[in-house]
């Protein structure tokens, strides 16, 4: 019984996360200290959850896309657009729910557009989403007219910086989305369909899966997730910064998905592990910040750690280290 509970936990991602957190703790002894302040939890670990949330949300959307052998490079730009739309609308006097709905609609529309290019026009995903990656940020800059649009709307600010039962709102949203999407793909046949399309789209279509519709849906979800992340980071700084919001975050999201064990060749995927991947990345970032290394080392440290995590997960390592093997046997 105990073994059945423990074996799923003994996977390389969680081991890597624990490892990174332990390194942080060695560098900064108060890393795990959490206090209660002004009606919310306060501590470095909470920062990891809070700051990791946008990338985690992107990864939740990205994982479905990558599982279909695709990739969505536009999520960073879609974040900027969604933030810009929400901010300019509340500044123009629209109520926050309308602004949020409009921003989500923009994200969904961007995702569906990507899906249309990939599924209907059969453009390769990396090229199809590159279009919006480049154009999206330009559109966001047009919306904000190049300014950082600052706002004081309490609802938007709450989405970015508020807390629910002491937990940062961003983390709450990420966890809720993770549960929702996991249930959606694992308690229905959708997950199986995604895997089938990822492994062999032609075969999946012949087997009766409406692969075109499915592809449009996964890209739509990715766009929607990007919009959620975009609203969160705009709320966080109380402004929409079209030049910098979500910049290069598509790469972090892809990395999170890959660290989470999803294959870039499609097929195998896991939503919760992608979220763990995002947390690993953020734990590294936060660790670097509290450790006091000079900033010139940031990227080198990050690259070395990521290399380490990927080595732990590599097929060779799983043959040497028995942990993963037992986990596999347990699945059988």
């Amino acid at each position, binding site marked *: 019984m105990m073994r059945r509970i423990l074996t799923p936990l003994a996977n390389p991602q969680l081991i890597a996360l624990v490892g990174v957190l332990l390194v942080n703790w060695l560098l900064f002894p108060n890393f795990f200290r959490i206090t209660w302040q002004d009606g919310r939890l*306060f*501590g470095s670990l909470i920062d990891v959850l809070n700051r990791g949330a946008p990338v985690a949300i992107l990864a939740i959307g990205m994982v479905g896309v990558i599982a279909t052998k695709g990739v969505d490079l536009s999520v960073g730009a879609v974040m900027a657009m969604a933030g810009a739309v929400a901010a300019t609308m509340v500044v123009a006097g629209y109520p926050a729910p309308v602004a949020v709905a409009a921003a989500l609609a923009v994200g969904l529309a961007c995702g569906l557009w990507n899906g249309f290019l990939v599924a209907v026009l059969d453009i390769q995903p990396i090229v199809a989403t590159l279009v919006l990656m480049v154009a999206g940020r330009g559109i966001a800059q047009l919306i904000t007219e190049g300014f950082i649009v600052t706002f004081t709307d309490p609802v938007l600010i709450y989405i970015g910086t508020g807390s629910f039962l002491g937990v940062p709102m961003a983390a709450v949203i990420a966890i809720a989305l993770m549960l929702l999407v996991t249930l959606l793909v694992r308690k229905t046949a959708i997950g199986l369909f995604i895997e089938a399309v990822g492994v062999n789209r032609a075969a999946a279509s012949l087997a009766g899966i409406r692969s075109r519709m499915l592809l449009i849906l996964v890209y739509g979800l990715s766009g929607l997730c990007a919009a959620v992340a975009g609203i969160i980071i705009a709320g*966080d700084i109380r402004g929409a910064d079209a030049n910098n919001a979500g910049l290069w975050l598509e790469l972090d999201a892809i990395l999170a998905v890959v660290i989470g064990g999803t294959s870039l060749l499609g097929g195998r995927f896991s939503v919760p592990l992608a979220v763990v991947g995002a947390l690993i990345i953020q734990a590294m970032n936060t660790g670097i910040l509290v450790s006091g290394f000079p900033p010139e080392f940031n990227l080198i440290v990050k690259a070395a750690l990521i290399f380490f995590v990927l080595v732990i997960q590599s097929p060779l390592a799983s043959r040497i280290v028995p942990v993963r093997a037992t986990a596999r046997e347990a699945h059988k």
Partner: protein
Amino acid sequence: MSIITKLALAAGLATALSSGALAQDISGKVIGFSQIGSESGWRAAETSVTRQQAEERGVDLKFADAQQKQENQIKAIRGFIAQGVDAILVAPVVATGWDDVLTEAKEAEIPVILLDRGIDAPEDLYLTSVASDQVLEGRVAGEWLVSEVAGEDCNVVELQGTVGSSPAINRKQGFEEGIASAANVTITQSQTGDFTRSKGKEVMEAFLKSSNGGADICAVYAHNDDMAVGAIQAIKDAGLKPGEDILVVSIDAVPDIFTAIAAGEANATVELTPNMAGPAFDALAAYWADGTMPEKFIITESKLYTAENDPAGEYERRKDLGY
């Protein structure tokens, strides 16, 4: 009336008169301005201030936006030469590759003035260059902090700009020079916030955690105002009062930092003036009046703004400049 106020008034009057006199000297002149583009709020503000300055002086300004491309700038300068303008202002996008086009301008006897960035070209190809001194900006910020804490121990955390960028290197160096004389002021932590609000906030959150919840931090120095705005939010989230519990000093003087200063949440900012054109026009006026050669490198003022400099008014003056 004290002697100092009298002197200040006299100086003010003299400036007003001299600028009035200069305004007449170059009215009616046609001046071409090749701007890099509008990649930042400051750049947009520079464009609008240049237009304002030209209008005040009756200059017919021909404006060309290069959209971050040198070839567009070279094309624009050739266009200005063909139109036979009286002078050309250039904010060069890169440092190299200007020799040919500037030689053409020189042969056409059109003076060229560089704005806010230098180039690698023989100095006789341009009349002068107007730019800020980024090291000085950092030093002014550092010296302000030293005088503000007045001898008390002060641990400073630094939010650097993008690693390796020249403003980040120079503003760091300047600040260190500014606090070098004061042993009581030390930089305890320094990290990059990439010049953005969200990174500034994230880094400040980490600093607060690793400095005993912020109790060990006396001041934050940010290489630009945007990071300071992010840091202010992080300080507030940690239950501290920015501006009181933790002093906030930064550089650029964008409108939003004046809102923060007016609210008592930021303490000081050092201006990177968007008015590079004003000194350029003055230099041209003197050059045309009696052939005075200006200095090769005109350094703009790095003015310090605190709560005593009417922050609310400064916000109003700047908010429509395009920052």
